[in-house]
């Protein structure tokens, strides 16, 4: 052990900082995602506010050492409120040359690079396409940064040589060395990760032991060698008092659905087909069998939504989860659900498109598909989640609206918040709103007739479960006569039904909260109107500009169809409207079309979220124009 080798006292200075962005970067097989998550969880448990951004390639194992195979995990943690994973990095952990090549452009001037020298041999430099003979660790190309060269591979081997483990197992432990070093660098305790290792490898004690040894060796390396002379202290954040947990967006969506099931008393059914980046919701829900959750891994996307339609028909809270290409496949069936008027929640975790596009990267380009992507006149509610923890509220609301208004609902999240995590002051059961469910149990028409499409004051039809005695009736995709639900080809009836179905969706505006200004005042020179996952970046940009004296505000949409009733009025309080979106201007079209306002769009379609700087620059540019 390294600690045993050193006998000399060393002096380390401690520097207090309010926020830090660390980028873990390595090969897909280097365990960077796990390392990043462990570091983030530890920071969260310590009381930092944080936001994470896993950024990985779509190949499970791209060729080792190549730029294509670089897997990154970014964490932004601080002693103040954090809303984004950060624009630039303070620290890069580069496990190989390719990782450095990919991530160096976003490292701050003067930032820290911790480079695993074993990943910078000639072969790795070639694979990363550095020119022949060039070695960034040895030439002066990194002189504007603080470079720490650590042979992580060698130290890991050294500390595990007595364990009798094979080279493969030893190699696999090297991420723990890095993690231990980082814990030392940022003065974080090892306990959480020690506990994690013991649990994860409870059946393989020799692997657990190797990971623990390596983790501690990494810590000791920082503590005892002369190389590192500064430790950074990031104090706990002054967050709202309460009990917190860490949560990713997909996990929050999953438990939002379970919460809606428990509160409504409806059994939860998920029909789904694996697709990146939505699959984790299926993974998560498959674990909750003890709570009567039924998950059906369908043969395809269409069967996913169709099985959910079948489950909804017989009275379950039915959900299907997918990403853009899957939503495209499901559209015909969603049209059926619209026509049948049955509850259904469709979760679309958006990714870069069209086609296979950028499956592991983020985008917001399915908004217009969610709004209009069905045949015929088939409006349905669209809700968008704004952060990892907001996926919980959004999933819960999607269920509530679907059940109480007898309609399919599309919930839009995206890869950025689905995989990203943040601390969450989670609610308790009592804080959750009621979800009212009424199944019809006796005839609702005159002379004991059954009127499956008789509507209440909200134009909502009754939910009738097969198995209910005396209410046998047929429903289907053919146009139906008002109230009776019998097949009807009457022209005027068709128009009436089209209008009734549209009006039913519009009336949901009475059942959702009025929109409030998120940051800033209700009247300002400029408002940034956002939706979905851009929330954190917009909030940060607007708050910083307000601090700098700019007259700006932030309004964020969670309900996109129907819009909150007061959206038009709220927007009229601002001279200029800027709509940043990770698409080519889709909300922009909706706002311009509905309110005839000269809103200005700001597009970024790179598979990456907006940075705060990009937004601030654009806001200032528009203010000055």
């Amino acid at each position, binding site marked *: 052990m390294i600690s045993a080798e050193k006998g000399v006292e060393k002096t380390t200075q401690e520097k207090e900082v309010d926020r830090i962005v660390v980028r873990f970067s390595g090969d897909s097989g280097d365990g960077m995602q796990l390392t990043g998550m462990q570091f983030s969880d530890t920071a969260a448990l310590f009381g930092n506010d944080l936001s994470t951004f896993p950024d990985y390639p779509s190949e499970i194992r791209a060729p080792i050492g190549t730029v294509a195979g670089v897997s990154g995990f970014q964490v932004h943690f601080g002693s103040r409120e954090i809303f984004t994973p950060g624009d630039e990095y303070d620290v890069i952990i580069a496990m190989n040359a390719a990782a450095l090549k990919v991530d160096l452009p976003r490292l701050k001037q003067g930032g820290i690079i911790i480079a695993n020298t074993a990943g910078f041999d000639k072969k790795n430099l070639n694979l990363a396409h550095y020119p022949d003979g060039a070695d960034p660790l040895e030439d002066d190309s990194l002189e504007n940064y603080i470079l720490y060269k650590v042979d992580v591979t060698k130290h890991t081997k050294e500390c595990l040589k007595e364990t009798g483990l094979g080279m493969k197992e030893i190699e696999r432990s090297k991420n723990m060395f890095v993690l231990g070093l980082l814990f030392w660098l940022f003065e974080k305790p090892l306990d959480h990760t020690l506990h994690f290792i013991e649990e994860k490898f409870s059946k393989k004690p020799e692997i657990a032991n190797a990971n623990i040894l390596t983790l501690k060796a990494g810590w000791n390396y920082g503590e005892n060698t002369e190389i590192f002379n500064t430790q950074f202290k990031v104090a706990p954040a002054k967050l709202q008092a309460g*009990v917190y947990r860490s949560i990713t967006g997909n996990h929050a969506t999953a438990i939002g659905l379970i919460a809606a099931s428990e509160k409504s008393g409806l059994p939860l059914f998920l029909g789904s087909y694996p697709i990146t980046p939505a699959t984790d919701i299926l993974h998560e829900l498959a674990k909750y*069998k003890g709570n009567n959750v039924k998950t059906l891994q*369908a043969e395809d996307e269409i*069967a996913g939504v169709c099985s959910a*339609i079948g*489950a909804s028909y017989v009275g379950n809270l039915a959900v299907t989860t997918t990403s853009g290409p899957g939503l495209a496949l499901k559209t015909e069936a969603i*049209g059926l659900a619209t026509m049948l008027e049955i509850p259904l929640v469709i979760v679309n975790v958006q990714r870069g498109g069209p086609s296979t596009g950028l499956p592991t990267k983020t985008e917001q380009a399915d908004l217009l598909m969610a709004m209009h992507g069905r045949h015929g006149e088939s409006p349905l509610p669209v809700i968008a989640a704004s952060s990892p923890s907001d996926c919980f509220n959004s999933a819960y609301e999607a269920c509530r609206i679907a059940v109480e208004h007898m309609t399919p609902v599309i919930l839009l999240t995206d890869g950025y918040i689905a995989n990203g995590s943040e601390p969450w002051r989670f609610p308790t*059961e009592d804080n959750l709103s009621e979800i009212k469910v009424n199944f019809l149990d006796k005839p609702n028409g005159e002379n004991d007739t059954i009127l499956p499409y008789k509507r209440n004051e909200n134009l909502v039809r009754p939910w009738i*479960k097969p198995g209910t005695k005396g209410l046998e009736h047929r429903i289907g995709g053919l146009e139906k006569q008002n109230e009776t639900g019998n097949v009807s080809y009457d022209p005027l009836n068709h128009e009436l039904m089209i209008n009734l179905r549209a009006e039913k969706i519009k009336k949901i505006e009475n059942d959702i909260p009025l929109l409030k200004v998120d940051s800033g005042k209700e009247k300002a020179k400029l408002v940034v109107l956002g939706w979905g996952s851009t929330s954190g970046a917009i909030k940060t940009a607007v708050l910083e500009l307000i601090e700098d004296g700019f007259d700006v505000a932030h309004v964020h949409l969670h309900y996109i169809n129907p819009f909150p009733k007061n959206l038009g009025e709220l927007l009229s309080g601002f001279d200029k409207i800027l709509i940043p979106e990770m698409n080519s201007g889709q909300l922009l079209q909706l706002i311009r079309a509905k309110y005839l306002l000269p809103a200005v769009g700001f597009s970024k379609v790179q598979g990456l979220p907006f940075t705060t700087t990009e937004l601030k620059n654009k806001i200032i540019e528009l203010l000055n124009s």
Partner: protein
Amino acid sequence: MDTQTIDKSINYVAKDFASEMEVKWCPGCGDYSILKQVQTVFPDLGVAKENFVFISGIGCSSRFSYYMDTYGMHSIHGRAGAIASGVKAANPDLSVWVVSGDGDSLSIGGNHFIHLMRKNFDINYLLFNNQIYSLTKGQYSPTSEKGKVTKTSPYGSIEEPFNPSELALGAKASFVARTLDRDPKHMQAILKRAHAHKGTSFVEVYQNCPVFNDAAFFAYSDKETKKEEAILLEHGMPLMFGNNNEKGIMLDGLKPFIVDLNTSGVSANDLWIHDEKDKTKANLISRFFDTMFNDTHFPRPFGVIYSEDRPIYEEGMAEQIQHIKNKKGKLSLNKILSGDKTWEILN
């Protein structure tokens, strides 16, 4: 179907299962007979009316659900099986019947069809095979014979047809049977068998379309030809057919051949004895489809080709849920919300 509510106090008659909707198939359509046989056998099944659910796709066949006074959903093209899987998984107590056609099941819905057979929900699947697209007015279907002249194949179809029972067996169906519209008694018996079978019961019904593909199956029902062209399968009975029941089928290894009982000296006891449980032989029987075996023309089999007891999907699902409940118990919602690791921030 032991899970369904049996209400012995109600004595249903066939017309209790007829909805008020006017039946709108073409005059002479084979679908009328199927509707009648279903309505005839339903009172005998011992299932309360409210527990029947019909799920149909799109096509002439799929209007069926509107005509049954039970619960029913006329859904979208090819997806009836997928919807039915959700119905049955969510509520195993219902008696679920899928009604579909050759285009609906084997073209647009082919993927759902094979996976439904494999997963083995306790569902009854009626495939009305008329070997033509009728609702769209006469195009060749995935079961139309090669060379079929239709509006989309004016010079004859160049495609090999599916043999639905062979496909179903290949997809691991646990029950495979064939019947036809013009033999009401046979169909009634098969419907009862399908209902009694625990697992996905696949029933192919040869159904005449008098408008776009008339007489496609008459060889199996006309007096003059049926004894030569059709063979009735009965479990434990020898495979015999012919105008005077004088022909039999034997096996040479895995190769079937026809013998004449009058001239060959072979007796009925020496013939191939039908065994519904024997999958290898069921596969051979299902392939009596045309002149597949050495130019020898085999009669088309009707009856239960294969029947196997194997675990059903919804029970597996329920057992897993129960197992986890017993082992880990039900988590409280507050526990799910908090997860395992929390921390508190104090003011």
